């Protein structure tokens, strides 16, 4: 086995995840929120693949592929919503979309 130790990969993955999470929590534009979500997912994927490589089995890689597929479909739906909102000239601001308030 060559390349850096798995810890380094995990560090990068944690950094990516935190960046994404921060983006989700701080930004108000739904587009950016979606992007940040993708970053979080990629961080998680990186960790999966790193572990898969460490253990020498392919389960993690296949799992990562599945996550990518889900992420892609999620983006399709999310972007579709955003386009629909833009068409109706609604503000692109997640804090103003709160009709589900209890």
């Amino acid at each position, binding site marked *: 086995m060559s390349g850096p130790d798995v810890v380094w990969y995990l560090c990068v993955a944690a950094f990516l995840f935190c960046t994404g999470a921060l983006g*989700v*929590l701080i930004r108000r534009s739904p587009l950016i*929120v979606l992007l940040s979500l993708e970053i979080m997912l990629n961080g998680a994927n990186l960790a999966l693949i790193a572990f898969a490589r460490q253990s020498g089995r392919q389960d993690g890689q296949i799992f990562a592929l599945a996550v990518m597929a889900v992420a892609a479909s999620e983006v399709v739906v999310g972007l579709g919503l955003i386009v629909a909102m833009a068409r109706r000239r609604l503000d692109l601001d*997640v*804090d103003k*979309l*709160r009709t589900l*308030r*209890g």
Partner: protein
Amino acid sequence: MIAAAWICLFAPLGAAIAITLLGQRLMRRGAGYLATTSVGMSFVAALVSFAGLLGDSPDDRSHPSTLWRWLTAGSLHFDLRILVDPLSVFMMLVVAGVGFLIVWYSIGYMDGDDEERRYFAYMALFVFSMLLLVQGGNLLLLLAGWGLVGLSSYLLIGFWHERPSAIAAAKKAFVMNAIGDATMAIALFLLIQRTGSLDFEAVFPRAGSLGGWAANLIALGLLGGAVAKSAQLPLQTWLPDAMEGPTPVSALIHAATMVTAGVYLIVRTHALFEVAPRVEELAAGLGAATLLVAGLIALVQTDIKRVIAYSTMSQIGYMFLGVGVGAYANGMFHLMTHAFFKALLFMAAGIVIHALAGEQDLRKMGGLRRFLPRTYWAFLVGALALAGVPPFAGFFSKDSILAAALAHGWYGQILWVVGMVGAFLTGLYTFRMLFMAFWGEPSAFAREHFHALKRDVVGISLAVPVGVLAVLAAFGGWIQFAGIWTPVSDWLEPVAPALVDASSLQEAASSVIAVVLGIAGIGAAWWIYAARRAEAPRSLPLLERKFYFDELYDALFYRPSVLAARGLLALVERPLVFGSVRGISEAIRSLGSETRTLQTGLVRSYALAIAATVAVVTLVFVVVR
């Protein structure tokens, strides 16, 4: 013979089921024909059973027959079995025979009613119930028939269900009967506990070993059922209200079925009553009281059907008197003749009511003799039989009961005096009704109804049963002449041997005095209502309110239970039941409105909550490890 008895039992049930299932596919009149045919078939089958029994020797005339085991409960089991013996065949003949004529009459009477099919299905069910009651081979089947009779009477009294008064009357009859059913059920439970069976042959021989209080309680319970079903004091108030049903129903309830069931019950279970002689005397006393009270009330009634209804109560009182003093065959004989003349009176009254477009008020009638001559003659025969004028049927049967009472010691002599007063009252109220309805100048109301009609036109199905019953009421009493010619007593002797034996002198004295008093009653009625054509004498509130029985029961039972219900509503229902339910729902609602504030609708706060939770959970995992 046994097969015939089963056919007799199930033919009317089959007709009731067939009419119900065929529904609209059956012609309206078809329902009537079907019901009549089935009850006629029952009568023929009863005749066949009767002929079969005649062929046996008198000591060997009891034939039980079991179809299958009906109920099993531990060591107890009850069979679906009938008993064919002289008593049940006697009742089968009366029930099916008179019932057949009444159902036949109904075809004409109910013609054109909206719900003829339902009516005939109920009628057939009624006859079946009564046959089950008299044929049942154990007390449980008897009770089943007893309850079914109550149900059918409820359905038929409330037949015109759009009238509130009919519904109320039906409910009243049902509730009053339910009281009797309950006391009877208690008596049967006691019997099961004491003897371990309800089969007639098993229970009656052991009656002597029941023990004092148990014997008395059982007899009292059975008497309660008999009193309720036969409308005797103190459970008599349902009977006059039951006149809300169609007239043939009244005839069926009063003549062939239902009210005679109590008399049958006492005769059937006489072994249980004989070990409780005080209760048996109570039955005789209640009968005497009822015949007096009913006779007095009948004097002031203005509704033709109600007068006849009270006369039924009074005549059943005679039967109770008879069976109470132990003259079982005399009571049953009076039951039979009463079935003839009472059905006749009701049906003749039905023709009158039919002709007057439903009017039942005696005061609006008058002079109907001119318009309905043949009905008048039929009614006259029935009235003479009721008043006990020889040679009509009532004379033979009523007088033999009175003679038996005279032979029963000092208690019987008191009852005899009451019965004699009753005989006078019977003549008076019967002929008051007859004179008011049929004699005198035709009233304006009657003229109005008859000027367009042809005179005395009644359909064949109305006329023939009335004619047959008129013949029976005139000559039906001749099958037994006390002291000389007693086939009825001989026939019933193996089942219910009489306890008293009146001497010829007592028979003769009772007959002469009763006839004289009856004719005196008729004479008084003629003097008051025909010769002077008076209205009813000054109104007597005590009689018109029927001795305040309804008011008394209202005050004793209805009002206290309403008060108790109100109290429970205010003290238990509202604070405890409603309160606890309301408290729980309030608590859950406030909990919900608290939690809803957590849902802000801000996506980012949700994300923060998720992130924080994940962080906390992770931390916990790390620390715990």
